[in-house]
């Protein structure tokens, strides 16, 4: 069956360090993968999109990698700040309905 896995345990890191979040999937062939940020009581906010033929995408302190062989995307936040604390969701898009993972909570400690 199709599955998207994001670490359900919260990721706790110290301010200034790099946060790395993982999105694994099975039985999908996504045309592209998206990362969203969701704060409590708010809707998700789009951050980055990476296509199947791209290995890496960057935007300011954010970097996404996409390995279609491993069926994995990594999402990095460099020089993390307490304001980066939120839940980060990955979403797969392709010839099927858009599908989200459950998200990983990131907590950045000052």
């Amino acid at each position, binding site marked *: 069956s199709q599955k998207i896995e994001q670490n359900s345990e919260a990721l706790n890191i110290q301010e200034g360090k790099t946060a790395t979040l993982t999105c694994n999937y099975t039985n999908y062939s996504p045309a592209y993968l998206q990362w969203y940020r969701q704060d409590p009581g708010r*809707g998700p906010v789009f951050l980055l999109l990476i296509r199947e033929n791209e290995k890496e995408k960057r935007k300011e302190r954010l970097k996404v990698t996409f390995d279609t062989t491993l069926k994995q995307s990594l999402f990095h936040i460099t020089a993390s700040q307490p304001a980066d604390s939120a839940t980060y969701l990955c979403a797969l898009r392709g010839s099927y*309905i858009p599908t989200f993972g459950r998200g990983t909570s990131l907590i950045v400690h000052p």
Partner: protein
Amino acid sequence: EAGVAQSPRYKIIEKRQSVAFWCNPISGHATLYWYQQILGQGPKLLIQFQNNGVVDDSQLPKDRFSAERLKGVDSTLKIQPAKLEDSAVYLCASSLGAEAFFGQGTRLTVV
């Protein structure tokens, strides 16, 4: 640019009652989505519209849920009758391309 507007923000109803949610997407966005997000889970697509036509409603429980998008702009999602397991946040999103813009959602509690 105004974002996606949803109302109400919160709703508490008893099981077997009916409820309706309203969404006003970003102007010009042809695609509109309704998602259900249960606490601790990711958003689950219920229905996707392209203008006023349904693209996908395969995950919509059609015996109790209905949605419409009149004139290809605003949309309403209705639940009748509600069950306890319908307690969730209902998110509306709209898009022009790959990036979806979400509203703040309606938190529904069924008691």
